[in-house]
């Protein structure tokens, strides 16, 4: 049996505490996923915009979207090359779930070009195409949102939980007791959240944190009281919080009133992405984007309409610590 002598033991502990052991275990690359319950001193939220994202038409141009994504990721992870940024999020051999939002239908579903760009960069970072699963609750809704359902083969996978079902066992956390999508539990060990940003009657807005409603079977039970504390409790589930690596919010088209269904008369082409590892901070920034637009359009604030985002405060509280909603601790980087 090998034992460490005193000096070796102290050296080992020092290494562990400094993260060097983790570095070594990960082949020299440090993963920047936040530990469950841990909050960084400050949270960086990158807002990347391209006013020419759609060129002269109405459709997002793939090339410009890729560049926008690259700019956002490089700014988030302070890297010169996009693939280096992605390697801070994923490792070869992992299976990556890309959780999109397609409930609102085409027009307000997670942008196809964005998801394609994400999948492209993931593969460059060493993830096999077949180990990428674009997922949501229902395959038909995904198709209505413009996605091509694909199961099996060497390509990027794309399907809803209707194809796999939910786990039979319930998982519980606080106010939430649900069955989880088998795509989440059995198919991916890393999660990238790709929500859309829109006004949402019950909770105020729907963005990063609420996008996780799409992986549970009984989401309808968690809408009372502005979805509070359900949203926060849901995101505390170990199966979610330990796999979640990054949020890339599609703010290319944003609804400022009347969501979650697509309301062209109450939406605008913001042509932006919000990128963060702190979903609470990201939702806070997204909230302010919507509030500014509402003010510009002469609408009352969400708070005035009794739709203040209580769930954000809960997600940031001491019990949950999913991130920060304190503007003094959010570094907003606009690129």
């Amino acid at each position, binding site marked *: 049996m090998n034992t460490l002598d005193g000096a070796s033991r102290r050296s080992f502990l020092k290494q562990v505490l400094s993260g060097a052991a983790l570095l070594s275990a990960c082949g020299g690359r440090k993963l920047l996923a936040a530990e469950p319950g841990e909050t960084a001193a400050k949270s960086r939220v990158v807002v990347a915009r391209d006013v020419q994202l759609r060129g002269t038409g109405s459709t997002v141009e793939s090339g410009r979207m890729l560049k926008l994504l690259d700019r956002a990721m490089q700014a988030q992870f302070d890297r010169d090359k996009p693939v280096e940024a992605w390697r801070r999020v994923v490792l070869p051999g992992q299976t990556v779930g890309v959780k999109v939002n397609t409930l609102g239908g085409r027009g307000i579903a997670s942008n196809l070009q964005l998801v394609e760009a994400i999948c492209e960069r993931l593969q460059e970072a060493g993830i096999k195409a077949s180990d990428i699963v674009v997922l949501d609750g229902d395959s038909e809704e995904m198709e209505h949102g413009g996605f091509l359902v694909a199961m099996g083969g060497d390509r990027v996978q794309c399907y809803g939980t209707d194809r796999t079902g939910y786990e039979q066992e319930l998982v*519980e956390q606080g106010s939430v007791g649900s069955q989880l999508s088998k795509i989440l539990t059995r198919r991916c060990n890393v999660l990238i959240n790709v929500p859309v940003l829109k006004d949402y*009657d019950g909770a105020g807005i729907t963005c990063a944190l609420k996008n996780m409603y799409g992986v549970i*079977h009984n989401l309808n039970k968690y809408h009372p009281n502005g979805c509070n504390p359900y949203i926060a409790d849901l995101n505390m589930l170990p199966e979610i919080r330990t796999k979640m690596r990054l949020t890339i919010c599609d703010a290319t088209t944003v609804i400022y009133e009347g969501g*979650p269904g697509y309301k062209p008369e109450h939406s605008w082409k913001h042509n932006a992405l919000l990128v963060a590892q702190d979903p609470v901070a990201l939702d806070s920034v997204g909230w302010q984007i919507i509030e500014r637009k509402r003010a510009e359009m002469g609408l009352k604030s969400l708070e005035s309409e009794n739709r203040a985002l209580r769930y954000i405060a809960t997600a940031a509280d001491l019990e949950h610590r999913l991130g920060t909603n304190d503007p003094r601790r959010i570094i907003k980087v606009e690129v």
Partner: protein
Amino acid sequence: MFGEHDLQAAESRTMRGERNTLDRRWFMKCAVASGAALGTSGKPAAEISSGGSMQKQDDARFVVEAKFYQKLANKKIKCKLCPRECAVGDRERGYCGVRENRDGTYYTLVHSRVCAAHVDPIEKKPLFHYLPGTEAFSLGTAGCNVNCKFCQNWDISQARPEQIAAEYAPPQRVAELAKQNNCPTIAYTYNEPVIYSEYLMDTADAGHAAGLRSIVVSNGYIQEEALRAAYGKMDAVKIDLKSFSESYYRNVVTGQLKPVLDTLVTLRKMGKWTEIVYLVLPTLNDSDAEFRSLASWIKTYLGVDVPLHFTQYHPEYLLKNLPITPVATLERAKAIADAEGLHYVYIGNVPGHPAQNTYCPKCRKLLVERVGFTASKMQIRKDGSCPFCKHPIPGVWHV
């Protein structure tokens, strides 16, 4: 409703050696595979449709415009079916998970969408003062408008319809099946029938046209207009009164007590035969004070002749940490209700307990003896009176 699943399990343990527990997942697997709905008493309920298969989410056959809602601006709607009054945006569903706003029109997604069907003894509902010894063709869908942490049927009540295998069973077909199985009654049960009110109403009409009665097993969490329209078609109603405490309703049921009490009063005014079940959860709703308040309220607002069933809880869903209700607790509850002056207080889910029998409140003679789910002796006269002292025994006793 909540007790039926557990009663089924209890029955299968005592009566059928070949299966220790009969859970709903096993049942649905067999029912879908065989295209038949099997009664847990071993009685096939006959095929609902040939070659049953999983239904697609958007199967138009099940989608019917809802009743009891109000259109609002921005394509929103306000549901007026139950006290939640969900304000539902376009492409969203209400709390129940089975009613959906599509472009500003509200739809039920579960009309004729049956995911559970059995032929059950009427005593299993439980209804003790309604056609004893007969059977009810019983059905349910997905969905519920509350989320009781002790729900015995949570795997269907808390599910969305597309998550559960179902059969297409239009009202006429249900009536045919009930007749084929010699059931004088159709029972709407298993999940919460409030949320499939449209289907319930249409099926009750089809049943009445065929000479069949209808009964409902419900949480009573429904608005008055819908109550009068839907349960007005029922021939008997069993209400699950979960507790006599608003905080319990808020924390354990995610509902409210007062609307349920209002429902009971309205049913009385409507002249509907009503029985009440109170599921006793150890430490949560089993205090003497609560039993006393409950019994006193029933006596004052409904009368002493409303049957009250205190039933035993078997751990399930999100309250598996609680023990089975001690029989002594149920007997204590019964003693308190008896002392308050209620005439028909029963103990449920304890097969063989003498408090499952019906006794004349005047002469105390045994009138209906029950063994398990079977009324083994029924002595009430055709005019509904005690054969010994002629005291009227309220109920619906004969077909």
